């Protein structure tokens, strides 16, 4: 792993939510350059909300989100655009543009943000599609592809401008085990060969064990981080029974079950 101790994203005292509903309170963590960082937690614990705040779609209620020292929350105009250029996002269902072919989807950021000539854009788009294993599918429409292929095409589109950080929202959810394993391979290969930093939101255990350098685990009860470390460490040494159960895929006593409680406060 080309992982270093250098911090690339720093989250400071982040409180996020919708209106009066607080989803996460006073959360702080950092992501190091070149690592594969996984955000996980049970359903409804705020993983996706955290992601949407990190990529600038939502504005947090309190706190700072620093990319290389620049705050995404307060950035405006050109600074914000350059920050957004340094990240790529793959959405859960791909979010490919349905009326464009795969190649046009991948080419779109190149057309908008570079002055490259047409043949150059075609070649680069074809190269990116080959990198995610979709060579020969250039002319397919997203609706003609399987879910896994759509996710891979979405990764190709997210990284066509060589972002330093790639955010993946549930990259393996709903895929069969073989395709999931291929996705994990792809992520590892990209991280290694392109030295990209990955921030992945998921709750697929096999994927977490396969790719994650470090995980943080969010919890609905405390509205914050309940555990952090490498996945094996959390599984074997965590003192929190809920965390241990999560990693061992066990059921937990009903009194502790989070999903059954309505949001209080």
């Amino acid at each position, binding site marked *: 792993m080309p992982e270093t101790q250098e911090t690339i994203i720093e989250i400071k005292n982040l409180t996020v939510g919708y209106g009066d509903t607080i989803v996460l309170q006073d959360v702080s963590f950092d992501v190091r350059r070149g690592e594969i960082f996984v955000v996980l937690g049970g359903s409804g614990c705020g993983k996706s909300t955290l992601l949407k705040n990190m990529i600038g779609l939502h504005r947090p209620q309190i706190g700072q989100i620093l990319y290389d020292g620049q705050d995404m929350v307060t950035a405006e105009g050109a600074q914000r655009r350059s920050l957004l250029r340094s990240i790529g996002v793959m959405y859960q269902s791909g979010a490919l543009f349905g009326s464009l072919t795969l190649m046009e989807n991948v080419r779109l950021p*190149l057309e908008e943000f570079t002055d490259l000539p047409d043949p150059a854009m075609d070649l680069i788009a074809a190269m990116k599609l080959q990198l995610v294993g979709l060579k020969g599918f250039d002319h397919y429409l997203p609706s003609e592809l399987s879910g896994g292929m759509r996710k891979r095409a979405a990764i190709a589109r997210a990284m066509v401008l060589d972002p330093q950080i790639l955010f993946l929202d549930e990259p393996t959810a709903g895929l069969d085990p073989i395709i999931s394993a291929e996705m994990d391979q792809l992520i590892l290969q990209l991280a290694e060969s392109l030295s990209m930093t990955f921030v992945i939101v998921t709750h697929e255990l096999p994927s977490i064990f396969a790719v994650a350098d470090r995980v943080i685990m969010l919890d609905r009860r405390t509205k914050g981080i309940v555990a952090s470390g490498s996945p094996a460490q959390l599984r074997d040494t965590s003192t929190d029974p809920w965390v241990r159960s999560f990693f061992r895929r066990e059921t937990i006593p009903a009194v502790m079950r989070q999903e059954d409680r309505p949001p209080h406060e």
Partner: protein
Amino acid sequence: MNPSIIKPSATLPGDICRILEHSEETLHLSLAGRLDASVTAQLWYPLVNLVENAAPQLLRLKADDITYCDSAGIGLLMELARRQLKRQGQYSLDGLKEEFSHLWSQYQPKDFLEIRSSRPQPCCLPEETGRLAVQAWDGMLDMVRFTGELTLALLHAARHPRTVRWPEVWLVMEKAGVNALPIVGLISFLIGLIMAFQATIPMRQFGVEIYVANLTALSMLRELGPLMTALLLAGRSGSAFAAELGTMKINEEIDALTTMGLAPVPFLVVTRVLATIIIMPLLSLFANLMGLVGGAVVLLSLGYPLISYIHQVKAAVGLLDLTGGLAKTLVFALIVAGVGCLHGLKTRSGASAVGDSATRAVVSGIILIVIADGLFAVAYYFLGI
């Protein structure tokens, strides 16, 4: 270096790319600095032209001085390598820094010998014509199939009225009918007003301004009231039906209905068609009234009392004119709702397909309404209505 081989518009930026050796067999280039998207954009055509024109047996690239190279830069190197391979020449790339050679080693130039454009292009006119003909034929077949299916579903609904989902019919009636009252009223009022006003000027020359009432009443009741209502509804509700059903189609909701054993036509289309058939004559009646009010405003302003306007209108038009106009609206309603739903159900994929469906629904709805109106005019003429 032979200057004639480079296009005048495309000069090679000397600080980035230098020619170290240029002989019959070998072209030796050195690249330096940042190879990012903007530099690559400048370099692309000059460099490709240079190499194409020189057509060397061996292309050597010296990459020691490249300080940064992203996918765009790798793309440029790939372009040179693959062109060299296509020409069955040799290439060598030396001294690329380790971090970039990682990136380079992800790809094989032989995989990219043929680069396709981003969208399949029809080869020639016959292919394009054939494609359009097949599409038009499919469209006709769809229309026939849909009409048959809708007719059966409507007959079934007439025989078993309890199977119709009436709550949904009421809802569509409210959305497409009640909520359309202001716009229908406004447009018809203005049409009546403008028509009466324009007619006054020539009529005054003959001193027969009162006949403006006849003109307004006849044209509103027989023609403009129903027609304007139908056109407004095609724009307002036909497009809405197409967009709603189209979104359901791309979200697989239509598939879900089908697998539940609920055919989309009886379940979704019949309710909309019934609702439109019920509200269109009512809206049209309202449009007639508002048009007459518009005419009345003009005549009142000319000094005629309201009662003489009313008498004149009563003398000019009969029940047959009114019902003849309203009968047309039933057909218009069928066209508006049917065409809207048909195009909605035919939506392919993607958000823009929904927009296309809505556009098609409005355009073909309006065309069919106008054609139907023409046919009615001919039929009424021969029937003496």
